[in-house]
């Protein structure tokens, strides 16, 4: 079980890395780019909820560092965000897992919105990138995508005594 979770985790992290840089066919309208959810953040939340013992602050930070390298963000920005996400999710894990679906979606919305705000502020301060008010869009998309993760979480629940 332990090995299985490790493999699933590695695969999902790899998939999120690829999705992070995958681009639309050339010529697709540019606003579609705003619909991209922060895949890696959602993966981190998911695994912290599903198997908290297999996740850690340092791991989340290192994963964030690779995202920084991919995005050419200031090094450490996503690292700090992911580590904070991991920390917060772990702290409220037992509560969040009891929430009904809509409430979980609300929590995801707030989390992603907060992360986007921090990202934009740091980017505009450190890299002089323009600040955009479109940042709520990824949050909405992430919340709408969460039911899928919720299903998976529900299915993993019966095995909790093994997982935890």
């Amino acid at each position, binding site marked *: 079980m332990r090995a299985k979770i490790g493999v699933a985790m590695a695969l999902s992290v790899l998939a999120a*890395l690829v999705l992070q840089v*995958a681009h639309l066919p050339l010529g697709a309208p540019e606003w579609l780019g705003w619909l991209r959810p922060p895949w890696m953040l959602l993966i981190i939340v998911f695994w912290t909820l599903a198997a908290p013992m297999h996740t850690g602050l340092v791991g989340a930070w290192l994963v964030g560092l690779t995202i920084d390298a991919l995005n050419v963000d200031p090094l450490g920005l996503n690292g*700090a965000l992911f580590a904070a996400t991991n920390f917060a999710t772990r702290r409220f894990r037992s509560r969040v897992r009891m929430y009904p679906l809509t409430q979980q979606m609300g929590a995801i919305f707030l989390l992603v919105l907060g992360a986007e705000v921090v990202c934009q502020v740091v980017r505009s301060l450190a890299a002089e990138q323009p600040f955009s008010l479109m940042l709520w869009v990824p949050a909405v998309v992430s919340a709408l995508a969460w039911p899928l993760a919720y299903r998976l979480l529900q299915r993993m629940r019966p095995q909790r005594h093994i997982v935890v």
Partner: protein
Amino acid sequence: MVGLGLLSLVLITLDATTRILQPLRNGLGILVSPIFYIAESPYWAADWATKTAASRNALLARIDQLARSNLELSRLSQQAEALRAENNQMRELLGSKPRIVDPVLIAEIIGLAQVPNVHQVVIDKGSTDGVRVGHAVLGAKGVFGQVVETTPFNARVLMITDTRHGVPVEVVRSGQRGIVSGTGELDRLEAEGLPVTADIRAGDLLIASALGGRFSHGYPVGKVLSVRPDPSHVFAIVDVRPSAELGRSRYVLVVLNGNQGKQT
């Protein structure tokens, strides 16, 4: 948590204010570059599939069309050769140095920056191919951008439409100089700081003026769409349509002009 947060803060500050983290960034860049190839592979597969499935007749027609355009282009380049020789002779008579033709390198775009508002692409040539920071990058029809970061096998190109990018230009018709900067939209640039009295009007072609030392003189940057006064009636707002097909091209040319490796 606190330790990691502090470490991140230190890293972010160092990264924003100094260049000492460049080796770390390069190392990470090499480490993550395979991810770009994985992400690009579906497009390669689709490309390969359409090529394999294309009918013989369609291919023959394509070859025919390419042969014709090749003929036309080689005629133009013969002419250009003669004109260049003549031009250099004239310049010699005037006592100025002859222009050198810059060597170019064809590169394929393998990734796009996925942060909205940031117009950067990753190309499949890097410092081992001679690409350096500051090299100009051209599309088929005009200026595309410039190299801002290199790893041994890849380089990042900042496109002219990024809000942080500016190109010194001149108007072909009048010689009026200005700076064209990106707006964050793929099909619009803006010329900045020109007075309303400047000799520029809709339909003018803007070419790179070589004043910044990055872009060689004469490469087309864009066409003026409209000129209107700003609210103060002192400066003009000049909308420019970029010449290069920024959203559609898959191949770009890197202009390798040796002495521009230094970044300001």
